[in-house]
């Protein structure tokens, strides 16, 4: 479906020419798919017992019962799959948040959604003794949604639209506070500490396929809502008033958007403990290929974010072999500079 | 009453209109290259401020007027050349020493949250204070006099945030006055004020000048410059086009040359100083006086947006 001149956000600079955007999008899609394929292959190849990618490729197609096949299929495949899923979830929820709040600095980690979900899970584990994801998944949803609504209310207190700077600070304040509570809960109970120590930093290792499958429907539902919302989000990019005058139901779009973010980020946080900065970086990267049209941004984010997560995971596995660095740590180290670059690029008033 | 009573140790030649020929002026710019970071605004600029003058620096937006003033106030350091104060390079003085001779009214200053008028004005006394002497009688007198001169005595206990724009600008002027310097540098002091407050402030500066201070003022309004200043420095593209009295300097040719505006220059009916009245670009004629045969297509584009504010 050829795009009918996508709504341009009111930024200065030359309007993006539509024909060249076509080529860009096609090229971008190729680049992203190639990146996804390569990182996926690397992800099944690398590890404590590295395989040559060619060998990994072979056993992927013929499950021959060899040791390599066993490693790939029981350990690395589930992990890679999980990386793809949570990557897409965090990437798309970042894109959604940036569109909903018209805030280039939005990300589930920065706005406290991950912290909210994480805190709720800590309560579930610490107080209710939950050990399976079927139990605490719901805690993650509730916590994530509550944190997001809270941050949004704080940021927009007294006004319709929340200022980006205030949103970020509200998110940081809530994150610090909730992490404080979580720390307290883990410190007073060694069991909880042990159970959540590595969960809290965004690891995609050691999570069973069954857990992934348990969360899968929620993530897919979230992605579906996100795709359906892309159109209304395009008009919200022009401002609430203009969006309303264009016939967009602003309130409904917001509620659905928050629901989608909750499903995506809550589910992914329940699995991994929260991977930050993916949602911040990826939409900015794909925007370079897609232009400002949310439909493409969300779609491309869903493809590009998994590549980023897998790349971070591979890097984390490679640089401290035989140990590993969790994905969440790698993405924070890579992603924070992006935040800094973004805030340097704009003047405060332009944020 | 006047806050300009000389404190001990102040230079004595600061008052009185010194003639430009004899003696070196107190403030001299010699061959200075001025700019921000790596962007040069003015290259190898030389100019002197006549002692005891009311000097106005005029020119289109972005011509380097504020930059020059900021160099005079040593907010900017020239990359080559020098700004001399009383014959010595300004950066070689102790910082507070300069602050007692020369004060700047910046284009924008920030009032701390919740500060009251008298407290803010009192901050102008910083160059005279030290750790053990923070509030001498002379400080108090200078602040009281500055408040009185700017008609702020009644408002002295009010919060600065609560004042109107015109009153707030008077507070900053009072702070500069409390600093008690023989040389005052004013960076577009009347911008953002309504016309009554603009003239109120200019009259205030005139009284300072009458009391013997040297005033250097960046102005946008040519008519104000011509009315109040006795010496003009005209700048364009970082260079000084000409200097002199308003009468000699402000001509229709100069206005067109410097500002790209076709205008009529006629004596101000009130003061007799030159005043600039823009021509109508559609007709380019002047109805009552001599008609101009101007080509409307020749009107230069509007001046660029000003970038020197920040």
């Amino acid at each position, binding site marked *: 479906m050829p795009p009918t001149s996508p709504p341009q956000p009111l930024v200065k600079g030359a309007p993006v020419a539509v024909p060249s955007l076509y080529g860009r999008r096609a090229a971008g899609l190729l680049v992203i798919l190639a990146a996804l394929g390569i990182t996926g292959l690397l992800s099944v190849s690398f590890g404590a017992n590295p395989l040559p990618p060619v060998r990994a490729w072979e056993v992927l197609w013929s499950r021959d019962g060899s040791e390599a096949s066993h490693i790939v299929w029981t350990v690395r495949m589930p992990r890679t799959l999980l990386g793809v899923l949570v990557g897409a979830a965090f990437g798309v929820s970042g894109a959604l948040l940036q569109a909903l709040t018209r805030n280039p600095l939005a990300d589930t980690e920065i706005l406290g959604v991950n912290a909210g979900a994480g805190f709720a899970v800590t309560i579930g584990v610490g107080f209710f003794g939950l050990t399976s994801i079927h139990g605490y998944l719901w805690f993650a949803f509730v916590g994530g949604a509550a944190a997001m609504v809270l941050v949004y209310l704080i940021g927009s207190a007294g006004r319709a639209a929340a200022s980006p700077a205030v949103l970020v*600070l509200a998110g940081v304040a809530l994150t*610090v506070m909730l992490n404080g509570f979580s720390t307290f809960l883990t410190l007073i109970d060694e069991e909880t500490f042990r159970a959540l120590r590595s969960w809290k930093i965004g690891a995609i290792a050691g999570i069973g396929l069954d857990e992934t499958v348990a969360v899968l429907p929620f993530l897919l539902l979230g992605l579906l809502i996100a795709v359906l919302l892309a159109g209304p989000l395009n008009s919200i990019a022009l401002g609430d008033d203009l969006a309303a005058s264009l016939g967009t139901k602003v309130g409904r779009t917001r509620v659905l958007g928050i629901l989608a973010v909750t499903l995506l980020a809550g589910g992914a946080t329940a699995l991994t403990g929260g991977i930050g900065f993916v949602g911040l970086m990826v939409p900015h990267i794909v925007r370079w290929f897609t232009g400002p049209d949310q439909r493409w941004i969300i779609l491309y984010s869903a493809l590009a974010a998994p590549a980023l997560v897998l790349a971070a995971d591979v890097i984390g596995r490679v640089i401290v072999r035989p140990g590993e660095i969790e994905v969440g740590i790698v993405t924070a180290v890579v992603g924070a500079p992006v935040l800094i670059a973004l*805030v*340097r690029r704009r003047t*405060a008033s332009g944020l | 009453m006047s806050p300009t009573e000389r404190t001990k140790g102040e230079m004595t030649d600061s008052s009185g209109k010194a003639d430009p020929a004899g003696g070196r002026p107190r403030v001299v710019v010699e061959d200075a290259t001025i700019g921000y970071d790596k962007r040069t605004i003015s290259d190898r600029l030389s100019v002197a401020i006549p002692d005891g003058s009311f000097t106005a620096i005029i020119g289109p937006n972005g011509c380097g007027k504020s930059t020059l003033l900021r160099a005079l106030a040593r907010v900017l350091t020239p990359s080559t050349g020098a700004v001399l104060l009383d014959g010595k390079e300004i950066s070689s003085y102790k910082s507070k020493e300069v602050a007692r001779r020369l004060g700047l009214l910046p284009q924008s200053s*920030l009032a701390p949250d919740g500060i009251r008028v008298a407290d803010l004005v009192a*901050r102008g006394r*910083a160059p005279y204070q030290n750790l053990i002497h923070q509030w001498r009688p002379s400080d108090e007198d200078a602040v009281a006099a500055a408040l009185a001169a700017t008609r702020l005595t009644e408002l002295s206990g009010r919060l600065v945030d609560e004042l109107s724009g015109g009153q707030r600008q008077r507070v900053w002027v009072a702070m500069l006055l409390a*600093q008690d310097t023989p040389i005052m540098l004013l960076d577009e002091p009347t911008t953002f004020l309504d016309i009554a407050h603009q003239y109120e402030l200019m009259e205030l500066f005139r009284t300072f000048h009458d009391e013997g201070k040297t005033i250097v003022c960046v102005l946008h309004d040519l008519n104000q410059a011509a009315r109040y200043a006795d010496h003009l420095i005209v700048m364009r593209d970082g260079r000084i086009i000409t200097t002199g009295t308003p009468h000699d300097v402000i001509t229709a040719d100069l206005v067109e040359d410097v500002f790209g505006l076709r205008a009529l220059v006629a004596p101000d009916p009130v003061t007799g100083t030159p005043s600039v009245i823009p021509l109508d670009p559609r007709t380019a004629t002047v109805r009552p006086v001599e008609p101009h045969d101007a080509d409307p297509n020749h009107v230069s584009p509007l001046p660029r947006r000003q970038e020197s504010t920040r």
Partner: protein
Amino acid sequence: MNKSSIAFGYRSRTVRNRLFSGRASVRLLTVSAVLFLVAVGLAAVALTHGDYPLTLQQVFATLFGGERGFEWTIVAGWRLPIAIAAVVFGALLGIGGAIFQSLTRNPLGAPDVIGFDAGAYTAVVVTILVIDTRSYWYMASAALIGGMGTAFVVYVLSYRRGIQGFRMIIVGIGVAAMLASVNTYLVSRAELDDALSVGYWGAGSIARVTWAPMIPALVIAAAIVVSAVLLAPAMRRLELGDDAAVTLGTRPGAARLGLIVTGVATVAVVTAAAGPISFIALAAPQVARRLTRSPGVSLLASAAMGAALLSGAHLLSLLIAQAYRPVPVGLITVCLGGGYLIWLLIRETQQRYGLAR
């Protein structure tokens, strides 16, 4: 003395003699004095609490009675350094917060928000886990280097035609996020015992402070206070904007550098001895400003407020420990301070459009 001819809009007191002249708001002085007394009082009450409860009379009798028994060891040897730490560290954090809030011209510009204590903490964790030492001097130097390094990085990264407070805060948040993930990684890699201990300490706890680190910390604290007093006038002038500061005889670069070093030093001293104690630096100057109605943030009142806040949090942590479990004091300050920060944000957004100006 000499009656002021100027109406300042509040009651102030002028002192003038041959050696000294100055003027200060009566309210500022009173509030600060009361807050300091509250801080000391809370700290004294805290001396009575613990596994071996004492009455206030017993504490005083032990401290001033001259008897060197078991109770002396408990009170003077164990509890006193902690109580002093609560007062002194609280005051230091208040000063550090006031300095950075003044420099960034933003109530959110506290060193913990901008990531300086994350940097100090990272350096200390590395020192503990890698060099395997608990020597105060090692930890203090590491904290100072880490804090300074972070400050430098944040400053350089947010410098773009001058420093803008808001940009510095967001850059600091980014840097803090990186450091926090590094900290988490280090802790997750440590042995469980080490990790628990670093984790407890990393939440900010003064409960394990002894005389050994307190004495050097007090020396440095004294130096910090002197330097803050010397730099205070320049700080006041920088608040008016760089141009105005220059024209009043300040060298902004040098003054700012001195203030940053002093501010980071406050965080470093505290972090080295007690771990990162968040939000005192953020909340103290602002609460003090509202109580004293002083223009801008006042160093004196912020220090007093910080001392009172940390002493109070310390006492609270002792009470919770008696009733339930030991809680690091840093967690209490985080929870109180986080709530305060959120309230501050709501207020600010309601008052004016956004923070960015």
